C-alpha cells in the first residue's frame, strides 16, 4: 500500500517535471524571439505544474527547484525587456492577468524583483504589495513555497539601512515589517498543515511539517541579517512580534522549532538584553512543547557567550540573568503541570551549568538552584525514571567537575538533599563520582565539618539504605565501592592533630554504621590513618601543659581499641588480629606498655576464640611471633607471659610440620639480636630442639602413614636456624650440635624411605655451601665455622 503511494508519487513528480520542462522549452523559445506575450503564457503554464496537490513536501520541493531555476531565467528576460523599453509598471500589471493565482503570484514576485531593482518605485511599496497579494494562496504547502520564493527573491532587495534600496526614515521598519509579515503568514500556513487531513495521518503530517520547517525559520534568519535591526529594534519590535506569533499559533511543533530558531539565530548579547521578554514566553507555550531542550540551549549559549567574551560578564550581572532564568524555570514548571520530573531536573541542571560558568564565584547561586530543584522533587519520593536519574547525576556532577574540588561542593547545603531523591543504586554511583573526584584531584578534606558533609554525600556507600536488597548486589561492585571509600578515608587529613583526631572520630562514627559487610573495608584505612597520627604525635614532645583535652596517643589507642572491636562483630578475626598487632607495634613505639599488652591480649583472645581454621592459625601465629619479636616495651614478666603463650600456641598447631615451623620461629622470641636484654640462648635452643623433635615425629608419622618419610626440608630449615644463632653468638649452639644435625640430614637423605625432593636437596646443598663459604672467609667467622666438618 505504502509503496504504491510512493510509486504513484514518483509518477506524478515525473509527469510534473515533464510538463514543466515542456512549457519551459516553449517559454525559452518565446524569450529567444522576444515574444513577451508567449513567454508569459508559457511561463504561467509551466508554473501551473506547481498547483499539484499530489506531492509530498519532499517531492514538491524537487519540482519547485526546477521551476525556481526557470524563473531565474525569466527574471533575466524581464530585465532585458525592461531595458528594451517595456515599461516595468506595465509588466507588473501584465503578469497579473494570469487567471490562475499560483502562476500569477510567482510571476508577480519575479517581476516585482525586477521592479525593485529598477528603482522605479520604492522597494517597500512593492514588497508590501507582494506580501499582501500572496495571501491568495491559502494552501499550506503551496503557500509556504510561494512565500519562500518571495523571501528568496527579496532578501537582497530589502530596504535595509545601507542597502541601495534604502528608503526614507522608516526604511528599516519597512524591511522588518515585510519579513515579519511573511514570517507570520508562513508560520500560520505551516501550523495549519497540522489540522488538515485525516487524523490517522498525523504522524506522516508531522514528518512532512518537520521537512518544511526550515522554510519558515529562514525568515528569522533573514531578520537577523538585516543590518538595521539593532538591539533597540530587536527588543521593541522584532522579538515581541515574533514571540506573539509563536505564542498565538498554539502549535507545539512550531513553538519548539521557532523558540529554538530565535535562540540560534540572534546574537547572544540580544538574548541577554531581552532575557525577560524571551523568558516570559516560555510559560505560555503549549504543555507538550519540549521547553527544557530549548531553554537549556539558551542557557548553554549564554554560558558559552560568557566564557568567550569576558567583557560581557558585567552585563550578565546587570540584567540579573541568573535570577531571571531561575524564575522562568520555576514558572515553566508551574505552567507545565505534567512536565516529567526529568524535564524539571534537566532545566535545573542547565541552569546550574550556566551559573557555574557565568558566576563561578557565586556558590550561593548554585546552592539556590539545587534548593529549587529539591523543592520540585519534594513530595515525589525517590525517582524511578531512569532519564530523570541521569539528569540528576548530571546536575550533581556539574559543580564537582567545574570546581574540581569536592570541598566546594560540600559547601552546597542543598547538595545532599538532592541526592536523597536518587534511588539507592544511583546514589551510590553519585557517591562514587564524588570520591573519584577527590581522588583524581587529590583533594585533601581537612576539617570535621567538611568530613561530615562529605559523609552525608556518600552515605549511600557508607551504610545500608532502606530497601536495599543485598542479594542483587554484585559482589565485585560492592568491593569496588568499598575500596573507593577506603581510599577516601586516606584523603581525610589535617596536619593539626586536634583536628585530625576529630576527623577520625567523625569517620569512626560514620563507618560504624556501615554494618558487617562494610567494616572489613573501612576499618583498616581508619586504623592506619589513626596510626599515622600516632606516629606524628610520637615524634613530638609531650604536651608541656598536660592539657586534658589534648590529643594523646593514649586517647587514640583507646579509640582504636573500640574501632577494632567493632570488627569482632563482623566477624573478621583475621583482620582484627592484624590490626591489633599493628596497634601493638605502634604502642610499642610510643613506649606504652600497658596499651601494647592490651592489644596483644585482644589478639590472643581472638586467636583462641575466633580463629579456628588451621591455615588461618598458622598465618596468625607467624604474625604474632613476628610482632612480638619486635616488641621492646614489655617488662620481663609481660614478655614471658606473651612468649610463653605464643610457644604454647605454636606447639598446638594441627599439622606437625606447621608445629615445627612455628616452634623454631618462636626461638627468635628469646634471642633478639639488637636487644641485649633478650638473649636467652638456652630457651632459644630449647625451641630448636623441640622443633627438631617435632620434625622427627613428623618424619616418623609420615613413615607410618604413607610408608615413606617426608622431605628433609624441615631439618634443613632447623639447621639454618642453628647456623643463624651460631653465627649470632648464642653460646648454647655448639659445633657438635650442628655437626650432628648435618649428619642426621645426610643420613635421612640417604635413607631408602625418604622421598627424594630436589628442592630440599638443593636447599641443603646451598646451606652446606654457605658453611663452606663462611669457613673460607677466615677471620673470626672463619674460625668459628672452622670446626664444622662438611
Amino acid at each position, binding site marked *: 500500500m505504502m509503496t504504491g503511494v510512493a510509486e504513484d508519487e514518483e509518477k506524478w513528480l515525473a509527469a510534473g517535471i515533464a510538463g514543466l520542462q515542456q512549457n519551459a522549452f516553449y517559454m525559452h523559445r518565446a524569450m529567444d524571439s522576444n515574444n513577451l506575450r508567449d513567454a508569459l503564457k508559457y511561463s504561467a503554464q509551466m508554473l501551473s505544474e506547481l*498547483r499539484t496537490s499530489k506531492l509530498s513536501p519532499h517531492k514538491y520541493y524537487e519540482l519547485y527547484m526546477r521551476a525556481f531555476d526557470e524563473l531565474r531565467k525569466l527574471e533575466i528576460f524581464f530585465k532585458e525587456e525592461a531595458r528594451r523599453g517595456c515599461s516595468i509598471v506595465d509588466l507588473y*500589471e501584465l503578469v*497579473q*492577468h494570469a*487567471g*490562475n*493565482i*499560483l502562476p*500569477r503570484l510567482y510571476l508577480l514576485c519575479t517581476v516585482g524583483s525586477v521592479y525593485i531593482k529598477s528603482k522605479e518605485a520604492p522597494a517597500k511599496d512593492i514588497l508590501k504589495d507582494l506580501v*499582501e*497579494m500572496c*495571501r*491568495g*494562496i*491559502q*494552501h*499550506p504547502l*503551496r*503557500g509556504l513555497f510561494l512565500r519562500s520564493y518571495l523571501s528568496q527573491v527579496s532578501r537582497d532587495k530589502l530596504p535595509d539601512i545601507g542597502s541601495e534600496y534604502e528608503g526614507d526614515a522608516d526604511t528599516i521598519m519597512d524591511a522588518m515589517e515585510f519579513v515579519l509579515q511573511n514570517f507570520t503568514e508562513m508560520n*500560520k500556513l505551516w501550523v*495549519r498543515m497540522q489540522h*488538515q487531513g485525516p487524523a490517522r495521518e498525523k504522524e506522516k503530517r508531522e514528518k512532512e511539517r518537520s521537512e518544511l520547517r526550515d522554510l519558515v525559520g529562514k525568515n528569522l534568519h533573514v531578520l537577523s541579517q538585516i543590518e538595521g535591526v539593532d538591539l533597540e529594534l530587536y527588543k521593541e519590535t522584532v522579538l515581541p512580534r515574533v514571540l506573539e506569533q509563536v505564542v498565538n499559533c498554539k502549535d507545539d511543533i512550531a513553538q519548539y522549532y521557532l523558540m529554538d530558531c530565535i535562540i540560534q539565530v540572534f546574537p547572544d548579547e540580544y538574548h541577554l538584553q531581552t532575557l525577560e521578554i524571551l523568558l516570559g514566553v516560555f510559560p505560555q507555550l503549549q504543555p507538550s512543547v519540549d521547553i527544557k531542550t530549548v531553554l537549556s540551549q539558551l542557557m548553554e549559549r549564554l554560558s558559552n557567550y560568557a566564557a568567550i567574551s569576558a567583557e560581557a560578564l558585567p552585563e550578565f550581572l546587570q540584567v540579573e540573568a541568573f535570577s531571571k532564568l531561575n524564575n522562568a524555570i520555576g514558572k515553566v514548571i508551574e505552567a507545565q503541570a505534567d512536565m516529567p520530573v526529568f524535564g524539571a531536573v534537566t532545566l535545573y541542571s542547565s541552569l546550574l551549568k550556566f551559573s557555574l560558568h557565568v558566576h563561578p564565584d557565586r556558590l550561593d547561586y548554585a546552592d539556590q538552584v539545587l534548593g529549587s530543584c529539591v523543592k520540585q522533587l519534594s513530595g515525589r519520593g525517590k525517582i524511578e525514571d531512569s532519564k530523570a536519574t541521569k539528569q540528576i547525576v548530571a546536575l550533581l556532577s556539574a559543580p564537582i567537575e567545574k570546581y574540581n574540588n569536592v570541598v566546594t561542593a560540600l559547601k552546597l547545603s542543598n547538595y545532599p538533599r538532592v541526592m536523597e531523591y536518587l534511588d539507592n543504586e544511583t546514589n551510590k554511583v553519585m557517591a562514587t563520582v564524588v570520591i573519584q573526584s577527590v581522588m583524581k584531584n587529590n583533594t585533601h578534606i581537612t576539617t570535621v565539618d567538611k568530613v561530615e558533609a562529605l559523609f552525608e554525600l556518600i552515605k549511600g556507600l557508607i551504610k545500608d539504605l532502606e530497601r536495599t536488597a543485598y542479594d542483587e548486589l554484585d559482589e565485585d561492585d560492592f568491593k569496588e565501592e568499598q575500596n573507593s571509600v577506603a581510599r577516601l578515608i586516606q584523603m581525610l587529613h589535617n596536619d593539626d592533630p586536634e583536628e585530625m583526631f576529630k576527623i577520625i572520630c567523625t569517620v569512626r562514627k560514620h563507618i560504624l554504621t556501615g554494618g558487617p559487610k562494610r567494616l572489613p573495608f573501612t576499618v583498616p584505612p581508619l586504623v592506619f590513618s589513626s596510626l599515622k597520627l600516632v606516629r606524628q604525635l610520637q615524634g613530638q614532645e609531650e604536651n608541656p601543659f598536660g592539657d586534658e583535652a589534648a590529643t594523646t596517643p593514649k586517647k587514640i589507642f583507646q579509640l582504636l581499641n573500640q574501632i577494632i572491636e567493632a570488627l569482632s562483630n563482623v566477624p573478621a578475626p583475621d583482620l582484627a588480629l592484624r590490626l591489633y598487632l599493628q596497634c601493638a607495634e605502634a604502642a610499642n613505639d610510643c613506649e606504652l606498655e600497658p596499651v601494647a599488652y592490651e592489644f596483644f591480649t585482644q589478639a590472643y583472645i581472638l586467636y583462641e576464640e575466633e580463629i579456628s581454621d588451621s591455615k588461618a592459625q598458622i598465618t596468625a601465629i607467624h604474625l604474632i611471633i613476628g610482632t612480638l619479636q619486635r616488641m621492646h616495651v614489655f617488662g620481663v614478666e609481660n614478655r614471658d607471659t606473651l612468649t610463653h603463650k605464643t610457644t604454647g600456641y605454636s606447639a598446638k598447631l594441627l599439622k606437625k610440620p606447621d608445629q615445627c615451623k612455628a616452634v623454631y620461629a618462636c626461638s627468635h622470641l628469646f634471642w633478639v639480636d639488637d636487644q641485649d636484654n633478650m638473649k636467652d640462648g638456652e630457651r632459644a635452643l630449647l625451641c630448636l630442639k623441640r622443633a627438631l623433635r617435632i620434625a622427627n615425629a613428623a618424619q616418623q608419622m609420615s613413615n607410618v602413614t604413607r610408608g615413606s618419610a617426608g622431605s628433609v626440608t624441615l631439618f634443613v630449615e632447623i639447621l639454618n636456624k642453628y647456623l643463624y644463632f651460631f653465627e649470632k653468638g648464642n653460646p648454647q649452639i655448639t659445633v657438635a650440635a650442628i655437626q650432628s644435625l648435618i649428619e642426621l640430614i645426610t643420613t635421612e637423605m640417604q635413607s631408602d624411605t625418604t622421598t627424594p625432593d630436589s628442592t630440599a636437596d638443593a636447599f641443603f646443598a646451598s646451606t652446606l655451601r654457605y658453611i663452606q663459604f663462611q669457613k673460607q672467609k677466615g677471620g673470626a667467622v672463619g674460625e668459628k665455622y672452622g670446626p664444622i666438618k662438611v
Partner: protein
Amino acid sequence: MKKENGQTVMVPLFQSQENVCGKISIEPIQGKKIEHNGIKVELLGQIEMYFDKGNFYDFTSLVRELDIPGDIYEKKTYPFEFSTVEMPYETYNGVNVRLRYVLKVTINRGYTGSIIEYQDFVVRTFSPPPSLNTSIKMEVGIEDCLHIEFEYNKSKYHLKDVIIGKIYFLLVRIKIKNMDLEIRRRESTGAGHNTHVETETLAKFELMDGAPVRGESIPIRLFLSPYELTPTHRNVNNKFSVKYYLNLVLVDEEDRRYFKQQEITLYRLQEGS
C-alpha cells in the same frame, strides 16, 4: 478595429454628435454606363435580433440624396456629410443581438434592381466618471457553515479599470478548495414573455488557492483590460440590455459551488480624461 465573423477588418470609429462625412466614388466598368433613378446614402442605426434574422430595426435613419436620376459614364465622386449625428447607442455584438451602424449607398435602378453597398462603422459612447461611485460591501453566508464579507472598491468600473477588493472570512466550516471571481455578462433581448436571456462568463479569475481559516482576508485585484467587455447597456431602445455581474464563487472539496453575484456597471471612459 472591430472583429467580424472571425476576421478582423478595419472600420472607421465614431462617437455620437460627430460629423460623419466622406466621399463615395462610383466607377462604371470601362465602356459601360450606369443608368440610375437617383443615388442616395443613408446612415442607419440598426438593431438586429438573431432569432428574428433579417429583420432590422432602424433606430436611426438619415438620408442624403447624392444625385438626381441620370447616367454615369465615368468615375464620379460624391462628397457627403451627416453633421452632428445623434448616435445614442454603442455598437454591440452580442449572442442574440447586434447593434450596428452602417452607411448604405443605394443606386436606384428601375427594373434591373438597385445597387446597394454597405459600409459598417463603429460607434463608441464615452461617459464621464460617475459622480457617485460607492463600493460594494456585503456580508453573506450559509448558517454555521460559511460566512464571508466581501468588498469591491467601486460599483462602477470603466473598461480599463481594475477591481480592488478583499474577501474576509468570518466563519469557515467547509473545506474550500479555491475561490474564483467571474465576470458575467447577461444579455436580455426582447420584451415581455418573449424575453431571451443569455449569460456568458467572460472572465474566470482565481482569487484563492486552498482552504482559508477564520480571520483570513484575501485580496482582490482584477484588471479588466484583458477581457472583451462593453459598457453596460440598459434597455437599448426597448430591444435589449447588457448587464455585467461579478460572481464570487467558492468551490469546496466536493466541488460544490457557493456563489454570490453582484451587478457592476461598466462604462467607457473618455480616453485621456
